[in-house]
Each structure stands twice: as C-alpha cells, then as structure tokens.
C-alpha cells in the first residue's frame, strides 16, 4: 500500500467514524465511545503494519552513529508504551473520565521510567568513571 493510499484510507475511516460518533452520541453515548475505540484501533493497526521501513531506517541511522541496538530497543518500547497510553487516555477523556485518563498517563510515565532505568545507570556509571578519572589524573 503506498503512502497516498494509506493516507486516504486513514482519513476516510476517521472521518466516517467521527460522523457516526456524532450521530450516535445523542442517543447512545457508550456505543459512540466503542465506535471511537474501534476506529482508533483500526487506524493504528493499519499504520503499524506499514511502519517497518521507518524502523529499519532508524536502525541503520543508529548503527551508523555507533549506538548499540539495545538502546534502540528501549526507544522502541517507549514509543509503544506512549502509543497505547495515549489511546487509552484519549478514550477515557472522550468518555468524560478525566481522572481515569490521568491515571492512564501516570501508568505510562511509570512504565517509561522503568524502561529507562538501565540507561540512567549507564549514564551514572559514565559520570562516575569521568569523575574518578579526573581525580586520578589530577
């Protein structure tokens, strides 16, 4: 599927879903939210199934920059967590549950921090090495 076709498909799905949501919201708000969720999931699956070239390009760039593949994995996991968190938080907000949306975002932040712990440790060890090296050389 080329880019223009992808764009037209996503735009068509989202516009139809938005119109139908507006129609449904007055009578059955819960079904309107279900419809929004389904349309969001459809479009995300559509986009994610076409995203592989982007990832291989990023991987090539990181390899040519001399960064390890482990860091790329952390970045990709963080992107996935952000995507799901955003979907859930937006759905909760659409349903009028701002508090639940805030909790979903909090969960996403905690997961991101957990993912980033190894990188923090590496930075910390690097800083420790630098400081001790300066002490030894000075």
């Amino acid at each position, binding site marked *: 599927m080329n880019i223009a076709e992808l764009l037209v*498909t996503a735009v068509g799905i989202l516009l139809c*879903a938005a119109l139908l949501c507006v129609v*449904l919201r007055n009578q059955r708000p819960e079904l309107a939210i*279900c419809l929004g*969720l*389904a349309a969001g999931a459809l479009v*995300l699956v*559509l986009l994610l199934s076409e995203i592989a070239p982007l990832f291989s390009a990023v991987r090539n760039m990181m390899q040519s920059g001399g960064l390890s593949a482990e860091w790329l994995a952390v970045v990709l*996991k963080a992107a*996935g967590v952000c995507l799901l968190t955003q979907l859930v938080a937006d759905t909760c907000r659409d349903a009028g549950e701002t508090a639940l949306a805030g909790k979903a975002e909090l969960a996403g932040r905690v997961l991101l921090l957990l993912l980033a712990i190894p990188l923090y440790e590496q930075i910390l060890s690097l800083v420790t090495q630098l400081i001790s090296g300066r002490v030894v050389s000075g």
Partner: protein
Amino acid sequence: MDVDLIFKIAAIGIIVAVLNQLLIRSGREEQGMLITLAGLVVVLSMIVVQISDLFDTVKAVFGL
C-alpha cells in the same frame, strides 16, 4: 482491513436507539434497558477482537 466494523457498530447503535425509544414509548422500560445492555455487549465483543489485534501488533512491532 475490515472497515465494515465501524459501520456495523454505528448500525447497531442506531437500531438499539430506535428499539429503545419504541419500547420506552410503549411502556416497557425494563426491556428497553435490556436491549441497550445487549447492544453494548455485542459491540464490546466485536471490539475486543480488534483491541487484542492492536495489542498483538504493538507488541510485535515495538518488541514489548
């Protein structure tokens, strides 16, 4: 790609709304509520498949 899913959900919503109004006007409010509940359950069971598909895709693509 099943874009039909969106139209199915919208159709279920409209039908449920019409039936609900009909039943409430004819004085059967309990059955109207049951229809609402049934519509919600049907739509949810349709969506769950899609959501799990999304989760599997995200897991596979981002390596979670």
